[in-house]
């Protein structure tokens, strides 16, 4: 699978994502410049974390109009895979590829820490290799990560089994204390109804190598390329 990581002005997790995909997972991965109109034959497009356009106005609001987003949207509409991590998730909701919005954390602070995630569905490329009874430790780092969707939309998301991850405690219990940012129903990541566009606030690429003291994120990313993750 060929991966393309889009670089917006202000992206800062692009190199980390390339490292995870290319050096850790051993997949071909290229950077795609935001002013380009060419996805260079990539099968799987990643919108990385960072502060595109400084996150000024609203996170992701300006990046969503970058030239390459026309191609990314067309790719998704044809059924191609797109994944947004953190700022990438914000860009995907701003561009309408994923439902809902990401609001300011309830404590109004930027939060960087390790949290636990519970896979809610195994029916997605990103979670098919995961154990839905296990809590995965993955770091978050954001100021605007509180997932929000109005009632009717939330019902639709649930009916379609679109929730990928919820914030939970170490034992896997989805509790209010385990919710770092006030996200509705502890939602940390979702996919679209067609299940080819994924978005999540936590950073699996920051937990993919023994050097980082945490390899839980490796399992998520490996799930994209192999059906059963064996560690």
């Amino acid at each position, binding site marked *: 699978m060929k991966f393309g990581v889009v670089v917006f002005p202000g992206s800062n997790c692009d190199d980390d994502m390339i490292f995870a995909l290319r050096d850790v997972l051993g997949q071909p991965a290229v950077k795609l410049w935001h002013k380009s109109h060419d996805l260079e034959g990539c099968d799987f497009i990643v919108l990385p974390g960072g502060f595109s356009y400084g996150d000024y106005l609203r996170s992701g609001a*300006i990046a969503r109009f970058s030239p390459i987003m026309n191609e990314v949207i067309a790719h998704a509409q044809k059924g191609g895979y797109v994944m947004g991590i953190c700022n990438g998730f914000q860009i995907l909701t701003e561009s309408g590829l994923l439902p809902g919005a990401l609001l300011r954390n309830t404590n109004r602070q930027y939060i960087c820490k390790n949290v636990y995630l519970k896979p809610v569905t195994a029916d997605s490329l990103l979670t098919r290799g995961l154990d839905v009874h296990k809590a995965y430790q993955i770091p978050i780092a954001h100021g605007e990560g509180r997932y929000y969707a109005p009632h009717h939309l939330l019902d639709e998301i649930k009916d379609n089994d679109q929730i990928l991850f919820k914030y939970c405690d170490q034992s896997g219990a989805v509790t209010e204390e385990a919710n770092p940012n006030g996200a509705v129903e502890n939602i940390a990541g979702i996919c679209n109804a067609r299940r080819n566009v994924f978005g999540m606030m936590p950073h699996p690429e920051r937990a993919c190598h023994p050097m980082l003291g945490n390899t839980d994120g490796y399992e998520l990313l490996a799930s994209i390329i192999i059906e059963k993750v064996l560690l």
Partner: protein
Amino acid sequence: MKFIAEIQVMPQKEILDPQGKAVLLGLKNLGIQNVADVRIGKNIRMELDVADEAAAREEVEMTCQKLLANLIMEDYSYQIFPA
């Protein structure tokens, strides 16, 4: 008597506004060329229950100076209407 105060807090014009600058760049990259400058501030609406408009004005003035604006780098203006 009830009044509504519409308060605008803006970065002082001699202060750099990175947010406005980034939005201007975004507009240019979108092909919207005729915008010369963008500055971004806040709009705050308050409801007051005070004796008269003068009292409302005094109240709003105080909230702006004490809390709503950082006078080192922001200016404020406001309009007051009967609710």
